[in-house]
């Protein structure tokens, strides 16, 4: 059974920049990224209460929202290249959980979203409770890897 909200009182430090950096394997956010569940009405109202239409839409990348397990809560920004998630030091998304294999799951771009593949992990990858080998993700999917629970958000 997953342990709830490990280290929830110790959020990781915010990155100095949200722009991709070659020395940072994956961009992580401790706070809600722009455009994700933000209050849309707040952006539509000016100081004098006259509604103002946005002049451009807000785009955001695909994200995994980690809601359980070590380092949760955090948002993991998914790149347009393959990423490996696991507990090893040299993976793209490292989560220090003993329930994860060193290289647990591959996350790869697929069509307009992402596909995940179990890299022969010991504890498997469960998608909405179904143990899978691979799957194309859809918005709102829940992935469970040992005690790590991730929620997938499609980009736009």
């Amino acid at each position: 059974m997953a342990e709830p909200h490990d280290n929830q009182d110790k959020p990781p430090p915010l990155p100095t920049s949200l722009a991709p950096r070659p020395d940072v394997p994956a961009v992580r956010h401790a706070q809600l990224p722009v455009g994700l569940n933000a209050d849309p009405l707040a952006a539509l109202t000016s100081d004098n209460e006259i509604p103002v239409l946005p002049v451009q839409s807000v785009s955001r990348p695909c994200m995994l929202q980690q809601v359980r397990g070590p380092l949760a809560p955090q948002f993991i920004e998914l790149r347009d290249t393959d990423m490996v998630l696991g507990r090893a030091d040299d993976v793209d998304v490292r989560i220090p959980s003993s329930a994860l294999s060193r290289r647990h799951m591959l996350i790869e771009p697929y069509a307009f979203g992402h596909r995940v593949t179990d890299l022969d992990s010991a504890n498997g990858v469960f998608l909405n409770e179904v143990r899978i080998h691979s799957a194309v993700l859809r918005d709102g999917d829940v992935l469970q890897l040992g005690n790590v629970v991730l929620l997938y958000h499609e980009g736009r």
Partner: protein
Amino acid sequence: MAFFVRFWGTRGSIPTPGRATYRYGGNTSCVEIRVAETLFICDGGTGLRELGADLLRRYGQTPVVAHFLFSHMHWDHIQGFPFFAPIYQPKNTFHIYGTRPGDTRFHDLLSGQMRSSYFPVDFSELNANIVANDLAEDGTRIIEGVTVRCLAQRHPGGSYAYSLERDGYKVVYATDNEIDLILADPSLPLREPDAPRDIPSEVVDFCRDADLLIVDGQYTDAEYRKYTGWGHNRATTATDLAIAANVKQLAIYHHDPMQSDKDVEAKIELCRVRVAQQGSSLFVFPAREGVELRIDY
């Protein structure tokens, strides 16, 4: 030897693209089953087009050899075939199996949908080697170490289920079947909806101890009242079949085109309640496009 099972099309009757079916998919019947290097393709609905594109990517210059097991020839099970890109490459070979010796019906009917009145490319112009093959008199054949069996089902025009076994693992593909019409007491579900349904032993035995049963579960009980005789199961009857056959995992398949993603989830919930009522440990889930299972856990 692990089985890899990937759903390329899970919808019944007609493709249903759109937001309402985004999660479970709108492509019609197509399932890829891989056992080591051996590739089986169960049905060629519109999901087959995307499987074809994926095979081109995966195989590159390596020839593709695949074994087609068609449940039957209704549109939603064959419409992807003309758009299956590997059939246009001469290096590839595809076996189309009949269900008894010399049975070329499926091969012949596939070619029929590619006559010029229906499609611009004639079957005879396909570059790949398309082989009319068959199962033995008893409906069985060992294909590259995998034992394939077929079972005739109750469906308008007829249909077949297939089981594939190797090294103690078993996957059954059984779509377009109306078991509800062949129950020992077909009126029982109306009188006592929660009572386990008495499914013919021939069907139960065919599915016995499967690691994965992919089965037609098109309708809820309420929908079935309107569509009795259309050739498809109640999902709850499919669940009873899986429980009776001691199946490990049940994939409810061939979703009705009128069912949204939420409807599919509600249908699965009804099946899970039924599993709990019968004290079973069966795991039921909705077949979903783009999901691949590994059968050796």
